[in-house]
């Protein structure tokens, strides 16, 4: 681990002012007039060659502050930086490219890999993707960058019903076909899946996110994720996605099935001045009948964002600055079962309404002001926990 970084950083060192010349920098230390030794290997990696293909680097930052109260108990003001990510993409050859997204987890101080895959094109309809893949279940997971949203928080259902960011090591195919008015695409992957933290977690409810096991697969059975999406230039995009897998305990024969069906839609109208975006997901998880009923075997949730541009103008030298207002409506029901004892429904749900005003100086950056009102109902359906908070956020690609 240490070595990794040392080597990495040393390598990067030379980067600082070596950009002008595409002549590779560090190779000056390798005397090509002599034979190479094994010890020259580190300077002879392909990336130092002169004809290396271009690389792009970017990322985004997301910072916010909030003030609110839950059932009368006020939270003070604190600042958070939930997201700082770095992208890197490179073309490997004329048929393949590499793309990765790395995030800095500010609380643990660890670097978290969100996506790192190589895509290779065999045909427009047949592309192979391998590596750590963002599973295409719903739409948010693949399109989660904070600067794309006018809301400070991620959607509840897209993070607690469907996991986000949800990626697993595996392999699969994708492709699309269409014309300038219609396009039809598909994705189909086999990846690692879930461990039994789905139901063995301290939340006291079924939670796919808790059981994500990206880099190891205890069950020996791959998880399938697939999506079909259809887009019309005027009507927007409709996606249907499906996940099917098992969850399992390490070192135990017990496994249960997991399935997710999600439908997502997004469309822009009125010359891009009105955006409607939403998704809905239904989760089924096999729970042993002897386990606790608070861990439900059916979950459902979704959200819809409606954003309108109320002003598009030139401000502070930004030619296409926009002011948007909008609202998000969201709902997540973590347990759709009934109590065995009473046949009464199990509640355990959450709903929120989030009006927003945002300022977008350009397409890369957004300043967001939200008010979020949320009600959480426990599994018995007792009087809800009500939270109201004002949120001010800033997200920008860089």
């Amino acid at each position, binding site marked *: 681990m240490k070595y990794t970084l040392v080597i990495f950083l040393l390598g990067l060192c030379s980067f600082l002012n070596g950009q002008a010349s595409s002549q590779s920098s560090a190779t000056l230390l390798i005397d090509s007039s002599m034979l190479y030794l094994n010890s020259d290997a580190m300077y002879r990696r392909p990336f130092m060659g002169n004809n290396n293909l271009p690389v792009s680097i970017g990322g985004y930052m997301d910072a916010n502050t909030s003030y609110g109260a839950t059932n*009368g108990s006020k939270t003070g003001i604190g600042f958070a930086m939930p997201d700082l990510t770095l992208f890197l993409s490179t073309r490997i050859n004329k048929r393949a490219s590499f793309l990765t997204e790395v995030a800095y987890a500010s609380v643990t101080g660890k670097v978290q890999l969100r996506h790192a895959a190589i895509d290779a094109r065999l045909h427009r309809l047949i592309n192979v993707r391998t590596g750590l893949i963002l599973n295409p279940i719903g739409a948010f997971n693949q399109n989660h960058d904070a600067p794309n949203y006018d809301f400070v928080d991620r959607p509840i259902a897209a993070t607690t019903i469907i996991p986000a960011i949800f990626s697993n090591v595996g392999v699969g195919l994708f492709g699309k076909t269409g014309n300038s008015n219609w396009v039809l695409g598909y994705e189909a992957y086999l990846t690692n899946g879930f461990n039994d933290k789905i139901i063995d977690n301290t*939340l006291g409810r079924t939670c796919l996110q808790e059981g994500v096991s990206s880099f190891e697969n205890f069950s020996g059975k791959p998880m399938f994720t697939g999506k079909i999406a259809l887009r019309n230039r005027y009507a927007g995009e409709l996606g249907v996605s499906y996940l099917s897998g098992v969850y399992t305990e390490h070192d135990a024969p017990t496994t249960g099935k997991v399935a997710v069906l999600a439908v997502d839609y997004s469309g822009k109208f009125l010359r891009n001045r009105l955006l409607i975006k939403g998704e809905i997901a239904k989760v089924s998880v096999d729970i042993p009948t002897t*386990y606790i009923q608070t861990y439900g075997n059916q979950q459902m949730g979704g959200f819809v964002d409606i954003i309108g541009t109320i002003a598009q103008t030139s401000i502070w030298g930004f030619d296409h600055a926009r002011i948007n207002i909008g609202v998000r409506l969201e709902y997540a029901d973590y347990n759709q079962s009934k109590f065995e004892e009473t046949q009464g429904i199990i509640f355990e749900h959450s709903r929120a309404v989030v009006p927003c005003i945002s300022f977008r100086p350009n397409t890369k950056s957004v300043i967001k002001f939200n008010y979020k009102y949320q009600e959480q109902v426990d599994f018995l359906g007792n009087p809800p926990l009500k939270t109201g908070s004002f949120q001010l956020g800033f997200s920008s690609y860089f």
Partner: protein
Amino acid sequence: MTKFSVFIAIVLTFWCFFSCKEILPKGLDDDQILDGTVEGLTEAELIQFERGDEAFREVFVKETGLGPSFVTASCISCHAGDGKGHPFTTLTRFGQPDELGNQFMHLGGPQLQNRSLPGYEPEIIPLGATFAKFTPPANTGLGYLEYVSDADILAMADPNDDDKDNISGEPNYGHIPDYLTKKPDAIPKNDKYILRFGKKAAAYNLLHQTANAYNQDMGITSSYESIDAFTLKEIEPEITVNKLNDVVFYLETLKAPIQRNTNDPIIQNGLMVFKEIGCEKCHKQTLKTGKAPIDVLSEKEFHPYTDLLLHDMGSGLDDGYTEASAKTYEWRTPPLWGLGLSSDSQGGAYYLMHDGRARSIEAAILLHGGEALFTKTKYESLSESEKAALITFLNSL
């Protein structure tokens, strides 16, 4: 720039929207909820209360010792909002109809762990055992009940019905485990001590109750109760004594429920009916604590509507199951405080009496038999308005 005015208009619209709601939601008033501390805790005591509250909410998992067989995975899931529980977490205890002690300890008694981790079988009631179902009680005001002196309890007892009022309450006496410290004012009888907590008053104090609940409800061993409920073998503690003490402190310092609308004449009338027809003979309105190690609980008067004694409740409530010296038909008078808020922790419905079989306050009254038969009969003969006043009074508790 008209756009700016559009913007202002929108902002104002927003503001209207906000002003229609609780922008920063307030909590319910103190008399509408059961949780919250007794007044006057020191800062150090508040810190311990918070730690206990957090431990009370902890959801156990495999890794932290849950089960492998259990009733539920957290304290809070049985006592949502510190109130009464729901049939979902109603637990089952099994045993025998005599008072010679539980004969099924070697078969996993007294409590049924009816759920289990994947791969494990839950417990089943052994052949020949009798059983009763117990709905989780509310937690509030328990500290006050803990420190009622034995002398006060005995003063309310009347085992031979010397006063000929048909009411013959008596305390539950039992042996208590070594890890419990005896109360300084304890009045034992033949090495047995007065027990007071639980449906059949089988627990000596809140530490006893809590150590047992971790062990029997969640399969979490402590150095106090170290026998694993599944394997019946002694294993390492799965929670620390510190945490257990914090939870006990939390339970001790939860405030007493606060009665609402005490000046309402209907409610005052209801209280009169309550006393007139004899409810208050067992559901004693006022008790007081003796000396308590927690200052704010020491020598305080309070209104729990219980006498902490066992009473014969008649054959209708006889489940054939005993604990310590409590007979099959005897149940401890449950405190009525907080009754009106019960449905806020039972999912909007009522599940009353020891096993939750009564779906309304009136249904609960009508289930009273045995010593309470006379009072129940009196209730039935009340006028509708008197009945309504009584129910309104009970709902105000």
